[in-house]
């Protein structure tokens, strides 16, 4: 097993101390013996001159290619902290990349949502605790649940707005590119809508939880929010997208305002209202699924 190559005896430190061109070339080519390689590598660790001499033996195109890919990856980056966390949890990176472009998932949007909620919830709390009196004449001050009317109006509408921002072409400047691309339009829409829904539900539910009112209010708002969003999406397969979003909004706002005006705002927490929402949700989901091809064609005119 003896390696009888000449270098095995151990080279002695020479006057100059650097490996010559031939030695570097044989190291780069992989033809140098093990002990020589170790010597060279130990030397390289401390010698910048020999390191750059060695670089000349590597294919320049290969180095250039790796450099350009490196710089692109550095430029693209890893995304926001949320994205890194979600990626670590196992969500596929390409889906996260598509979601990152959704307006209703961006910090500015979410901050606005929280701002609106703060205003509405603040007003509800203020009325409840008697700090201010409820505004319009004709509404009986102190009627149970009256103070919650603005919140009930606004909460699900905020969720709907988030979902609308996920599918309305006006919120996706690159929609023409997406339309001409093979990635499934429906899958994209669904991913965005579900994420926007979740992102909007969290602050709404939290605000509902913190509000002085029936304890089950957050849960009671869940079904209407889901139903509204599903309805808007399903309507978008029939109507133009903007009309679909507006219709869905009106279908919530009008009854809520009417109920508030007739002093029965908390109907929503009752059994029959919740069932109606569930029915709308299921019907919309079915329509959406059956007509999902509409999202594959270039459906913006």
């Amino acid at each position, binding site marked *: *097993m*003896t*390696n009888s*190559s*000449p*270098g*095995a*005896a*151990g*080279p*002695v*430190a*020479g006057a*100059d*101390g*650097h*490996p*010559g061109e*031939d*030695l570097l070339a*044989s190291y*780069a*080519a*992989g*033809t*140098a*013996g*093990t*002990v*020589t*390689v*170790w*010597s*060279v*590598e*130990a*030397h*390289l*660790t*401390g*010698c*910048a*001159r020999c*390191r*750059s001499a060695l*670089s*000349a*033996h*590597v294919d320049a195109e*290969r*180095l250039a*290619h*790796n*450099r350009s*890919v*490196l*710089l692109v*990856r*550095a430029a693209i980056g*890893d995304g926001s902290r949320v994205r890194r966390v979600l990626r670590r949890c196992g969500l596929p990176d390409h889906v996260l990349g598509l979601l990152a472009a959704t307006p209703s998932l961006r910090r500015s949007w979410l901050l606005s949502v929280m701002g609106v909620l703060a205003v509405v919830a603040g007003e509800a709390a203020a009325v409840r605790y008697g700090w201010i009196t409820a505004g319009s004449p004709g509404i009986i001050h102190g009627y149970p649940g009256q103070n919650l009317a603005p919140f009930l109006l606004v909460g699900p509408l905020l969720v709907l707005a988030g979902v609308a921002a996920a599918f309305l072409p006006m919120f996706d400047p690159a929609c023409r590119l997406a339309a001409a691309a093979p990635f499934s339009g429906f899958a994209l829409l669904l991913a965005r809508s579900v994420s926007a829904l979740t992102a909007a539900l969290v602050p709404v539910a939290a605000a509902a939880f913190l509000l002085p009112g029936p304890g089950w209010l957050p849960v009671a708002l869940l079904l209407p929010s889901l139903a509204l969003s599903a309805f808007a999406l399903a309507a978008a397969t029939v109507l133009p997208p903007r009309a679909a979003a507006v219709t869905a909004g009106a279908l919530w706002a009008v009854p809520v305002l009417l109920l508030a005006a007739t002093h029965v705002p908390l109907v929503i927490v009752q059994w029959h209202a919740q069932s109606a929402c569930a029915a709308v949700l299921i019907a919309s989901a079915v329509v959406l699924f059956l007509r999902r091809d509409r999202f594959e064609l270039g459906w913006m005119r």
Partner: protein
Amino acid sequence: MRPEAGERDDAALLRAVARGDEDALTALYDRHAGWLTVRLTRRCAMPDVVDHAVQDTFLAVWREAGAYRGGGDVAAFIWGIGVRRLIDAIRRDNGSRWRLPWRAAEPEAVVSAEDQVLVGIEHGRLGQALAELSPELRGAIEATVLDGLTCAEAAVLLGVAEGTVKSRCHRARVALRAALAEQQAGPDTKAHRREAWGTS
């Protein structure tokens, strides 16, 4: 070696990278990617895997330049990242994991005696002892001692089980001690000692 006048040294470049200077990253790449590629190729012969490792290394440098505390050579810092990225790249690679066969069985390329002298590392007795090890044992020593890998990492690199790495390291140490002692004692005890090595 002193850098050329007007050029920043590696530590300065690394500090600039930590501040987000992309040109500094490019300069660092231009200086170090060449030797890193060669050195990694020596451990893993698949060029795609090595390319990925090199890219990942400098990406890691880009992200973690702040972790470099200024002690120690920048080249060693880069190598430490590089060899671990190579291990990751090998793990990710689904194809067969193989590396360069040890070339000890082949005659060494003819290099002038002068060059051998000029490499400048005192190997002497240790060098001869190392050269007398079998390729597998040498690989284990290289991975754990020279490259500073853990046994688990070395196992990925060498394509064997972790236990195999540990036993090879042990046998290598035994063989080295024997070889060094025998060098002191003299060549006539060589035949007697060889049995202790056994087959790898």
